Structures are given as structure tokens and as C-alpha cells.
């Protein structure tokens, strides 16, 4: 599942960040910001028009990502314990 498809408020864990093209700087930046395997993420809020951008929380930091950026991140939805 892509981070861009994650419903608001649902908790998930980052699987990986895919490069959209060669030398994808945005994907690299996402990895630097902490979108790496095993990190818990959550979509906190959605933008007012077309639910774009997404406000994503990773750890205690919040990032605004456009849908196209969030689509690079593959996540696994946590099953309720």
C-alpha cells in the first residue's frame, strides 16, 4: 500500500521508498527525513483541496507531502494487536 492511499488517522509502518525515476532527489530526501523501513507513520491531516497535500507524522516530526511524493513511500498497515 502507498502512503498516499493510507486513510487519515490510520497507523502504518514504512516499508520502503521507491525512486520515481533515476537519481530521484525527492526519494533520497524522504529517506534522509526518516522514511525508512520500520518507522511508524500516520497521516494526521489532509489539505483542503483534493486532499492534497498530506500531513504525515513520523516519530514526533510532521511533514507535508504532496500526493505524488507520498506515492513514492510504500507502507504496511499495522494490524490491531
Amino acid at each position, binding site marked *: 500500500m502507498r502512503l498516499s492511499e493510507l486513510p487519515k488517522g490510520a497507523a502504518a509502518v514504512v516499508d520502503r521508498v521507491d525512486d520515481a525515476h533515476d537519481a530521484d532527489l525527492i526519494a*533520497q530526501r524522504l529517506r*534522509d527525513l526518516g522514511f525508512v523501513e520500520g*518507522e511508524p507513520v500516520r497521516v494526521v491531516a489532509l*489539505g*483542503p*483541496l483534493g486532499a492534497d497535500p498530506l*500531513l504525515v507524522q513520523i*516519530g514526533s516530526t*510532521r511533514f*507535508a507531502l504532496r500526493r505524488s511524493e507520498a506515492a513514492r513511500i510504500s507502507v504496511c498497515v499495522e494490524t490491531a494487536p
Partner: protein
Amino acid sequence: MSAASLRIALVGNPNCGKTALFNQLTGGRQKVANYAGVTIERKEGRFTAPSGRVLQILDLPGTYSFDATSPDEQITRDVLEGNYPGEAVPDLIVCVADATNLRLHLRFVLEVKRLGRPMVLALNMMDAARRRGMVIDVDELQRRLGMPVVETVAVKRGGAQALIARVDGEVPTAAPAQPDDAASRADLHVQVRQLLAATVTMPRQTAAVDDALDRWALHPVFGLAILAVVMFLVFQAVYAAGKPMTDAIGNGFGWLGEHLASGLPEGPLQSLVVKGLFGGLGTVIGFLPEILVLFFFILVLEESGYLPRAAFLLDRMMLSVGLTGRSFIPLLSSFACAIPGIMGTRSIQDPRDRLTTILVAPLMTCSARLPVYALLIGAFIPMHSSRQRRTCIADGAALVPYAQAARHCDRLVGAHQHLLEAAHRRDPRADGADVVYFQLPGAAAGRHPAGDRIQLRRLPGSRVAIHLRAVGL
């Protein structure tokens, strides 16, 4: 440069309080310069440590990583590695990290560590971390990182004492440099997680207050409404607070000029002093209050963290005109002045977005432009009292207002000749207006002979007036 001086570079993620720490250390005694080619400030300051050693401190741009997606990051990396022309390699790197956000900031600390240079970690914002109930085991962190770790509170007087004491001592030995490749890069995150697990106890992931505020501030409907209200209040306040000050400055300079000129003989010199020097100064300095008030509000919005939220709300709209949500902040400052607005665009990473914002920023109406508009409007838009050729139609259904209509008309038009003429005679203000009649077959009031719909409209200053918008009369 004396042999006793030590070159220190401050590095860290954006918003970790690096610059506050820099000002704390140097007491604001700094030299600001730009790196060639890109508009990035290079700040250097010096201070004398208690031991008498002179410390030269270089404040580098905030950086998330060394992958250089923005010019800031490229420069930071080049300086630290000694690759930047004309910049000596720093003797000591002070890596500043926000203690409340270690998960993000420690990664960069580890990245800097791999350069294999002597370094000290300054855990900044320790007061905020304690308030949030975070407990950081500094000794354990120090041991695991293999570098000295000091706590600082950059915004508090004396908050950098521990750091000063540490950098004044002997330079710590550096860990060996490590290769930089994709595998080790992913490994950094694993290391960060291990470090955090071993050294930090966090009560809750984010402050509950932040959550509650964001629920409203980022709400699709209320968020936009709040934004509109905030922007309205800011711009109203600029004029409510700035205008009296502007007037006072203008009057003050006028008064000063006249007093000085009273001692001068009438002539070109007096005119130069009164109108040129003091009149001109009064006008130019008069913009200052409005600009200062706007900057004050922008500062408040920025410090409160509202601006990134506004950027979030506006991103989609800005995208539709080829800009980005990040352009909002520079464009807003451009209402005060385009220069700081353009300087602020450096936080936009994408070169294309940055350039578009820079090109759009001067088109925002900065307050210094208002008098220019006033002048142009006065020059090109005639006053209402000047004669405008206006045709009025008065007809069956609306006989009463002939007289009122007449005063606004150059031409009275209607089907009822005698009424028109009577109105014309009764009202001397209609003198000079042509009277034109036409026959309405079937007396369809409100219809032009050509069949055009007649527009009935109130004119300013009259109770009722009839105005024909159809052409041809």
C-alpha cells in the same frame, strides 16, 4: 590569525537553534556575507574564551543531510570537508541538534561524524525537552556516539556556558572517517533507533496541544477560515497601527522643515530644504511603520509555527498557478518589501519553484508602492464631477425622476416630448443637455426602439435615475 585561535563551524538541521546559539556565543558581533553565486548568508563571529583563546565561529546553513539537494547543503558539505575555495577547514565542528527532535537530528549528527573530523554535539532546546517530559541520558549518548555531548539552551542568557567550557578545552579526537554509500546511509537510521532506544525516554510522541491546534488550524473548512481571518487582521493592523505613525512622521518632518526654513530667505534654497529634503524624507521614512508592523506580524506568525501550516493549506492553490505552498511565506513578506521576500525564497528547494517565486515576488504590492498607485489613479481616472457624456432615457413608467436624472445627463432621451421638455425647463442643472425623442410603437415602456433591454440603475447622488446602456442613441 594568531596560532592560539580555533576555527569552529556550527552545523545542524534547519530550525535547531544554530543561529541563536551563534548569537549567544558571539554576542551578536558577527560579520554577514554572502557566498558567491547563491544568496546564502555566511555568518562569522569571534569571541574570546575565558582562557584567552580566540574562537572564530562560522554559522553554516541548516542542512538535513549531505546529499546536497539544495545549495545550502552543498556549501555546508564543501566547507566541512575543506573543499570550499577560500574557506579553511574548521578545527572543530559543533553539531547542534534539537533535543526535542532527536530522531531526525541524530541522523545528521551521525552523518557529520562519518567525515572523521573533531566534533562536539550540542543538545539544544534542553528546556523544551524537559518540559515535554523527555529524559535524555547524556552520559550514555556521549559514550555511544564517542564524542563530547553538552546541553544548551540557546535562547536563555548563559545557556551556552557548558558549550563554551567544552570548546575552550582540548580539541576532542576524531573518530575515523567512514565511507559514504547507500548501504551505510540506510544503516544510519538503524543506528539512530538504537541510540534513541538506549538513551531517550519519551512520554508521548507529540504534545497534545499541538494535536488539538492542528485539528483546527489544518481543518479543510475552519483552517481556511482561520487563515482568511488571520490575514485580514494582519493587513488591517498594518494600516490601523502604521497609518497614525506614518502621519506623525510626515507631519513631524513637515513641521521641522518649516521651522528650519523660517530662518532661510525665500528662494530655491528654502524650497529645497522644505520640499526636497524634509518633505522627501518624511515621505520615504513614512513607509517605515507599515513595513515594520507587517514584519512584526510575519515574525509572530513564523515563530508560532503558523506559517508552515498556512503553506500546507495553500499548497494546492499555489500549485495551480505554478508555485508551491512554500512560496506563500516569501510572497507574504513581499507585501512589506520584495527584498526580504526574495531572500526568503532560499528555503524552496526546487530551483524552478524558487525562480518562479523570485520572479513573482516583485509583483506583490509592497507598501512603498501605494503612493505610486495613488498618483497614477489621480492622473488617469477623472473625478466624478468632470463631465462624462452620459445618455439618460426617461420614459412612461419612470416620469418622476426626470429632474433628478437630468443633472447627471448630457442627453435626455424619451418618447414623451412634452414631459421631457418640461423636465428640462424645470431643472436648470440639465441646461446644455440635448433632448432626444423617439417614438415607441405600442408604448412598450422600458424598451429601446432597437429592441435592446434598457437597464435601470441607480446613479450615485440621485434617488432614481435611468441609464441606458444600449448603444446607438
